[in-house]
């Protein structure tokens, strides 16, 4: 794997490879000594143009458990905010000898620009770009669904026939986009639930069904319900009238959770707005996978860094892309 920029172009085989390697990584994490020597001597840069402590420390933990050297470059509040361009930042990292760059950026497409510009030879991992994609989040979500469903028997399996409902601000959600593509690639049936104002104007080409009524979607007894975080500033742009109305119509409250079939799980990428998109009853119930998602995130990111830096690289094989 040369880069991980999106799940839109990730094929089934590559996705399963990442999930299966993550299973191996996960196994090592239950040992007393969690650290592996695999990436000794490699340098991973966490290049974060947006604050995201959770994602950044997850990547940092993943890299360190593989013995890579980690440089955290919080570009927000640094020279970048004084006008340094992405190009100059990238060339600086290149000059320092970065082997992989994990980039979080508020502009959609910035990781792709970084990867295809020729400014840098390092592998690029998209850790969330604008409202485009967040591929490692979708991978850890798929991993979590698979693990809950198949347990120790997960390796090699896809998500054929599994029904996933994704609820919330789809329009602005990179998590939703990455999940739609990945889950569909793995055979799951995806239903998006949102106020019509928070669905992109034309999703006719997405492999997902769109409904506006949460209760209707839940009545079908989905295997997983994934709640998206609502950004409170959305209200000022007239996407929905009030917090209270949103919560009433699209929030996962105690009553809605109680109506789910046995075995259905409740997911959230975090950080949660308790009482808005998700009630405490839902977040703290045994159905909730919120903390498993955090744990699995480290395994997924270990797998991605491993495949990027220790695996065979397409370009070194002579390049078939």
């Amino acid at each position, binding site marked *: 794997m040369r880069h991980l920029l999106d799940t839109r172009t990730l094929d089934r085989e590559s996705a399963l490879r990442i999930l299966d390697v993550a299973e191996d990584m996960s196994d090592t994490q239950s040992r007393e000594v969690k650290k592996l020597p695999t990436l000794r001597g490699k340098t991973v840069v966490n290049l974060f143009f947006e604050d995201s402590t959770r994602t950044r420390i997850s990547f940092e933990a993943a890299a360190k458990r593989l013995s890579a050297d980690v440089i955290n470059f919080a570009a927000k509040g640094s020279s970048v905010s004084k006008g340094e361009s992405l190009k100059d930042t990238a060339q600086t990292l290149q000059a320092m000898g970065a082997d992989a760059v994990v980039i979080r950026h508020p*502009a959609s497409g910035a990781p792709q*620009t970084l990867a295809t510009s020729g400014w840098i030879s390092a592998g690029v991992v998209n850790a969330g770009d604008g409202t485009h994609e967040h591929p490692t989040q979708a991978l850890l979500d798929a991993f979590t669904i698979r693990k809950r469903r198949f347990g120790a028997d997960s390796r090699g399996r896809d998500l054929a026939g599994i029904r996933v409902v994704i609820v919330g601000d789809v329009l602005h959600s990179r998590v939703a986009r990455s999940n739609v593509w990945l889950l569909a690639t793995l055979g799951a049936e995806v239903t998006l639930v949102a106020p019509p104002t928070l669905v992109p104007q034309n999703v006719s080409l997405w492999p997902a069904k769109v409904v506006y009524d949460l209760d209707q979607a839940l009545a079908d007894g989905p295997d997983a319900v994934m709640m998206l975080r609502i950004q409170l500033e959305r209200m000022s742009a007239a996407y929905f009238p009030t917090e209270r109305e949103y919560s009433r119509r699209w929030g996962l409250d105690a009553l809605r959770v109680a109506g789910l079939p046995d075995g259905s799980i409740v997911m959230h990428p975090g950080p949660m707005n308790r009482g808005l998109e998700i009630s405490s009853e839902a977040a703290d119930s045994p159905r909730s996978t919120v903390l498993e998602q955090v744990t699995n995130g480290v395994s997924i990111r270990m797998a991605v860094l491993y495949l990027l830096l220790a695996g065979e690289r397409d370009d070194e094989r002579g390049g078939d892309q």
Partner: protein
Amino acid sequence: MSETLVITGAQLLGAERADIIVENGQISEIGTGLSRSGARVIDADGLVALPGLVDLHTHLREPGYEASETILTGTRAAAAGGFTAVFAMPNTSPVADTAGVVEQELALGEAAGYATVQPIGAVTVGQKGERLAELGAMATSRAQVRVFSDDGFCVFDPLIMRRALEYVKSFDGVIAQHAQDPRLTEGAQMNEGTVSAELGLAGWPAVAEESIIARDVLLAEHVGSRLHVCHLSTAGSVDIIRWAKKRGVNVTAEVTPHHLLLTDELVRGYDARYKVNPPLRREEDVMAVREGLADGTIDIVATDHAPHPSEHKSCEWQAAANGMVGLESALRVVHQSMVQTGLIGWEDVARVMSAAPARIGRLSDHGLPLQAGAAAQITLYDPSAAGVFTESDLHGRSVNSPYLGRDLPGRVEFTIHRGLLTVDGGSVVEELNA
């Protein structure tokens, strides 16, 4: 005194091949077997003779943004593309909203000599959309401004738009509107549709253009004024213009070469060379604007030539500037999208790229049929040539062209501005011998 030119065997529009004599800045004779002793002979065998092209929508960036383009470099690019006149949009620094700025632009154009530079005046002071600029002062200045536009910014306030349309009637002016509802396009990055949904880029919906055009044609009808719609880009906009023309509204419309050829699918790689305003639209829109241009609903092709330095394009999509350079490629793109597709012929090309823009902008010595007595503005084009478009085809100061690396037909062999060769054998003339 300029050199006498004898152009032999040029293909005239709707006529036989003929020779053309250019003397003293004018076409003095058209016929066969012509010669002049001591004259420069130009072999135009196989070349189509077009009236010099006129671009109603160019950004020359001077004064204020000389790192992107100057009037000299921009008119050299124009000449390379076969243009003999360009209308300069007013979004300079300072904004061209006073007689002083438009007269300065006019003077710099005269000094450069590569093409006639006709300034466009801003509609409102500073293009802010609040107060009318001194339109009359610009109209009666030496620049004789007839086209007014806040291009880049829509004149959004309906009352200001109404007043502007009314006011310019007193000097036969026209308001050229950049139709974009600012509220519906806040933060917009690309056409709103299937591709924007996937890329997670904020959408620029077709309705934000169409609703302004609909309002403006109704306003123009109500006050009996002349309206020009800049760079329309959607199928719905074509329908509205068609409807308005049928009602007798005095409206003209333009389309850019890039909206005749490129679609929003190109945005997928986040390559900011494809970032432009209005944005690249869907395939259906491209087909609709081609049809509109062919049936006369759309009057002209204009480039919206918009140079930017590389640092404004070599960056994240969201941080990149809108705009593409287009003067050097315009005729070749129209050739590919409209002529090679059989939608129009070379006479129509002369109409939409020369006669009609000159008429809309009230430029009297351009856009006329090639005939004895007319000012010598001539473009000689080789329709049988073809080649990959590269940076060596660009002659301005910026290289933000979406066509680099593309095969385009045709080649501008000679451009003659006021009787002077500005392009000679496909190369821009370095020293004009005026």
